[in-house]
């Protein structure tokens, strides 16, 4: 029992430790010559964006694997990853806007990558909304996995069309959201440290989120087992000689 509790707690410890390291690295790294201290926002923004893409890729893999194997284990992976992905996409957008306002003076630009991220956010929000409409695990897994595949395959098309739209429609904007060219080793360490730390956070959250889906499914199973009528329940034994 003691060892089991330890196994269940390691994700929380991993999240705490990796975030502490990432935070320290991003605070001790030097300010950028052009952007000043604002460059520190990059150390949380870029890892969030990276995780957004990774999470949705995992959802795609989980959906395909479910359609092939029909194992609910894959569906749980896809679902957990989509939820964490939506969170990190929202975080990446919020942090990007927080970075854009002091740097460019606007909260939002119609840059291709920004537009694509916002569209992805809504694709997977729809995926989560779809999952909420169905209680039956197998039915839900089947529907969600088809949408997971459709969404992921459409993303590259959205990507190309948005890039063409920006390049053909208007001249490239003066301010591009590319990060500054990184030469300082401490800045590079802060960025890579952030990416590694956030990836550990993602894996840890996945472990706990899958555990939660598992528990919730068991709860639904138990509740439906209680509610389900028993065969022959409505039949009452005939009473003989009741009339007097």
């Amino acid at each position, binding site marked *: 029992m003691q060892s089991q509790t330890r196994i269940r707690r390691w994700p929380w410890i991993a999240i705490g430790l990796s975030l502490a390291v990432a935070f320290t690295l991003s605070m001790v790294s030097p300010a950028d010559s052009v952007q000043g201290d604002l460059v520190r926002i990059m150390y949380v923004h870029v890892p969030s964006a990276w995780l957004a893409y990774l999470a949705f890729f995992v959802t795609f893999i989980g959906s395909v694997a479910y*359609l092939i194997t029909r194992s609910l284990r894959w569906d749980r992976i896809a679902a957990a990853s989509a939820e964490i992905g939506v969170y990190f996409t929202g975080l990446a957008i919020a942090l990007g806007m927080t970075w854009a306002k002091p740097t460019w003076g606007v909260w939002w630009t119609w840059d291709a990558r920004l537009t694509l991220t916002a569209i992805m956010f*809504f694709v997977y929000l729809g995926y989560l909304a*779809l999952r909420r409409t169905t209680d039956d695990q197998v039915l839900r897994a089947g529907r969600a996995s088809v*949408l997971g595949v459709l969404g992921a395959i459409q993303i590259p098309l959205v990507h190309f069309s948005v890039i063409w739209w920006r390049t053909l429609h208007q001249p490239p904007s003066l301010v591009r959201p590319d990060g500054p060219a990184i030469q300082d080793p401490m800045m590079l360490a802060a960025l890579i440290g952030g990416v590694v730390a956030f990836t550990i956070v993602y894996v840890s959250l996945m472990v706990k989120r899958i555990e939660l889906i598992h528990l919730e499914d068991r709860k639904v199973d138990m509740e439906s087992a209680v509610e389900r009528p028993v065969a022959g329940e409505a039949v009452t034994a005939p009473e003989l000689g009741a009339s007097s």
Partner: protein
Amino acid sequence: MTTGFWHQVAAVIERDLLRERRRGDVLWITIPFGAIALLLIPLAVGTDAALLRQIGPGMYWVIVMLFGVLVAVGKASSETLPQQDASSLAGLDPAAGFVGRSVSSGVLLLIFELVVGLVAVGLYNISVIGIPWLVLTLVLAAAGLALLGTLTGAIVNSTSAGTTLVPLLVAPLSVPLLLGATQAYDGLRFGHSILSWVLVMATVVLIVAMIGVLTARPLQET
């Protein structure tokens, strides 16, 4: 793909179009809804003729994408679960059902596009140019939207949120169609090549059609 398959497709198309003729959902609900939306926009943004002429084509395509999907939604929700069970028991290939429903939705969407398009041309004084290419983009947009609507309609089929969920799922996925259609019109106006945009739209149509056919049976089984 046997002849039986295409016979089934034809039967589904005939059934859907007959139902539309009887009930007139697209003619009496979706088309007037799209037309009144075009009427509302100038009330909100102002009636400056030059401005309306400039934003007209874009507004038209946004309305086609947002409201056009309702054509496919209506079809998905009009089929009850017992009806679906009956068709599958009668041996209807789920893939044939998907193709048939997509084609009938596509035809109705094309009618929707044409009527609402005439309203847009009239209200916003849009110039109609490059007709063969324009028709091609209208057909591709109708096909892509019909396929997306039919596929997501099958995914959310008979869930509690069915009809409200489909537009949310389709809207972000229809971005390549929206960009393709609007950029193609701009290309025609300024004399650029629009081949790449036509190819983007055609790719969407092909990919969604392929996913729909491949997943029709798994979706039916669940």
